[in-house]
């Protein structure tokens, strides 16, 4: 990491709407300019509140938010939202209904004459491929177009920080994929520190350089997408990014033995209770005469390129495995299941 990176630093941020458990409960987060951080968490985990606190739309009840060397929020300090240079893409886009796409985009531009501002706004609309719709009003635009106007508007004043609150949630699946690409390109062109709030793991993995997982008001893990996906710090963290199978086991000379076989558990003392995590696609589905735990396929859910198999072990426990759609597995088949020792991750049992 380069030392002079410009960063937004959130330390122990707390937002409390009512007595009781705070919505944001001592969250730590660091956003770096030129990089996209996805804040992933279930609804009610406090992600939107944290985003609003960074934008200055909520006051902090504890902790601190600073950008470079300036404190934005802290004890007795609250910089007004209009002074923070944060571009926000709201979940409902919040386009001004009385202004055209162009004038929405130009809203935050200051200085220079009208012509310059319009030219700059038009340039922004062009970067999200909306130039032909510049004079349309929000109610004349489709959902995807509105989202792109919202993005262009947020980026137009060249903000230091871009905050996006579930920006694709109102759109259908196909459109989401396209917009993700447009958005990623637009963000790469800007040098802003970007925070993408989402509850969609796929979206987070596709767009972000860094993923921060949030649960019950706290950031529970931060890291590169694949690292967080494959080496989650806890069962909660693991489940945020997708389906996971967890096996309780006891560490024994650097190994943990589960019903599906052994997993390497170096670093755990002998006798320590551990939890072995495996993603469904890392569970091997073998022929009935091979090695592994005997099981019967009870269900099959075909998906895009993959199929999800529900397999029942002899003790009745159900295990999810994912194989290629072309694999010859069918309900009723007897199979053997085994862990792929290279792709398991072992955590202390308490962490679950």
């Amino acid at each position: 990491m380069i030392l002079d990176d410009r960063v937004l630093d959130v330390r122990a941020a707390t937002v409390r709407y009512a007595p009781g458990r705070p919505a944001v409960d001592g969250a730590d987060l660091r956003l770096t300019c030129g990089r996209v951080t996805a804040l992933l968490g279930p609804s009610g985990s406090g992600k939107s509140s944290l985003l609003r606190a960074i934008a200055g739309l909520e006051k902090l009840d504890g902790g601190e938010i600073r950008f470079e060397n300036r404190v934005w929020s802290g004890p007795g300090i609250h910089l007004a939202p209009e002074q923070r240079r944060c571009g926000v893409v709201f979940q409902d886009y919040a386009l001004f209904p009385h202004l055209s796409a162009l004038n929405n985009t130009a809203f935050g531009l200051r200085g220079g004459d009208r012509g310059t501002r319009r030219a700059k706004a038009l340039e922004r609309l062009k970067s999200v491929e909306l130039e032909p719709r510049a004079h349309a009003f929000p109610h004349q635009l489709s959902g995807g177009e509105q989202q792109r106007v919202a993005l262009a508007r947020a980026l137009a004043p060249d903000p230091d920080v871009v905050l996006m609150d579930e920006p694709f949630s109102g759109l259908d699946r196909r459109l989401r994929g396209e917009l993700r690409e447009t958005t990623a390109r637009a963000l790469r062109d800007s040098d802003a520190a970007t925070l993408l709030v989402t509850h969609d793991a796929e979206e987070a993995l596709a767009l972000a350089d860094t993923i921060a997982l949030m649960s019950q008001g706290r950031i529970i893990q931060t890291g590169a997408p694949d690292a967080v996906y494959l080496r989650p710090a806890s069962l909660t963290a693991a489940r945020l990014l997708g389906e996971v199978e967890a096996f309780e086991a006891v560490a024994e000379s650097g190994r943990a033995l589960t019903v599906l076989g052994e997993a390497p558990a170096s670093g755990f003392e002998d006798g320590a209770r551990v939890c072995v995590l495996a993603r469904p696609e890392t569970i091997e589905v073998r022929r009935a005469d091979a090695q592994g735990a005997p099981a019967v396929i009870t269900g099959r859910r075909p998906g895009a390129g993959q199929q999800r198999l529900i397999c029942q072990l002899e003790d009745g426990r159900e295990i999810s495995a994912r194989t290629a759609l072309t694999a010859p597995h069918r309900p009723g088949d007897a199979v053997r299941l085994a862990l792929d020792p290279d792709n398991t991750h072992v955590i202390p049992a308490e962490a679950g």
Partner: protein
Amino acid sequence: MALSPALRQAYPVWPALFAALICAAPLVAVAALAVSGEWTGYLAHLWATRLPDYLWVTLQVTALSGAVAAVTGAGLAWLVARYDFTGRGVFEWLLAVPLAVPAYAAAYGWYDLTQGAGPLGFLPTVRGPAGAGLILGLTLYPYVYLLAREAFSGQSSDAYEAARTLGARPFEAFRRAALPLARPAIAAGMALVIMETLADFGAVAHLGAPTLTVGLIRAWAGEGATAEAARLALMLVAFAFLIFALERTQRARARQTNASGRRKPARRVQLGWAAGLGAVALCLTPVLLGMVIPLARLSYRALHAPVTRDLVSAAQNAVLLAVIAGVLAAIIGLAAAYALRTGKMRGVFAARTAGLGYAVPGAVAALGVLAILSALQGGLDAMWTNLFGTQFPLLVTGGIAALIFAYLSRFAAAAIGPSESALARVTLTLDAAARTLGANGRETAWRVHRPLISRGALLAALLVFVEVLKELPATMILRPFNFDTLAVIAHNYASDERLGEAALPALLIALAALPAMVWIARRIIRAEAAP
């Protein structure tokens, strides 16, 4: 977003508190006046003499006007919302326009037409409680029409279509599925009609249907007995508040029943030419009866009568008062809407208190203002006597200010609703968006709020403009000497049986209110049609 105290509470509440004071003070004053002095003896006397009659007539007139308005308004709302026929687009707003006609103008016209020597003398004469109820229903039905139309066209067609697929014939489906869903809206509209009926003086006085309001004005004018009038006023207000409570609860329910997710407007059924002709005839009926026929009669009478007094200054006075009251009411409406937006307890309380004024009949508001003025005079006199040993050298008369005070007390509430829905367009995220784009609070108000709420504020101002233009009892009680408005002149002539001279001022009121009402009606219809 539900929670964002940081931006929500950025608006001041004190203007709404001031508005609440304006609206509530006259009512409080009337109550204070009513309970001062001997109470039981008067009540017994009143009960023995006129009170039962007043109450009975009031019940008859309100029941009839409410029923006529409900059937007319709801029926036509259904027709316009669910069927397509030639002229539907015009009738959609035209059906709301008879609200521009003061009930007394319609009463003058119909009475004149149907009295013994009139051209429609063969019909039963429009008079008495039945006549008054009919006339009030025919001029006030737009309240029901507007609310019911919104309910019917906002209703997704699901309920009606589900009923049809379950084997109900069209009328049965209307009765069992569509109507129950719109019933809260219809009830709310009826409550407005009844409150207006309770407040009416001109029509019931002319048609010989002495309601509580007539009794109140008689008590005030006949014996100058303000305390007695205040006691009647208190009864009238109790009556009105009952209806008002009904209206509020029904409106809350109307919002609930309409809140069902996405609005898929029902596709209208195209009517054939014969049925279409029938629909046109149905739509024309209330417009003709409530507006065109009585105004035509008044025009005829006006053309054949000498202009005896200077109507120009009276018209100027009327318009001036209506404009001032309209503008101030719009400001009060916005203040209340912003106070509600803060979500603070006292803000909501202030706005709701200001909203109560709608249930206070004009005569009561005027009486309250009189009571406040006389209390002020008494206080000043006492102070002056203490200091200098003489009476206060000036007589406190409110003049035009007192009139405006009473108008606002009664009508500012009408401006709150439109302001609230205008401000609802400015969602909290729009505020947040503007702020994050570098606009401070004042700039946000100017660049985002102003363009989004200005039409709603204009709507509020025009609504009050029309109401004040038509207002009679408060103006009669509070107008300064030698200060006439069109309504007062019309009423004075009409009560002298000089209908020819009363015709022109009454007609002028309707003509002045008409363009405003057309704009209001079209605006309301279009606002609902927009996404």
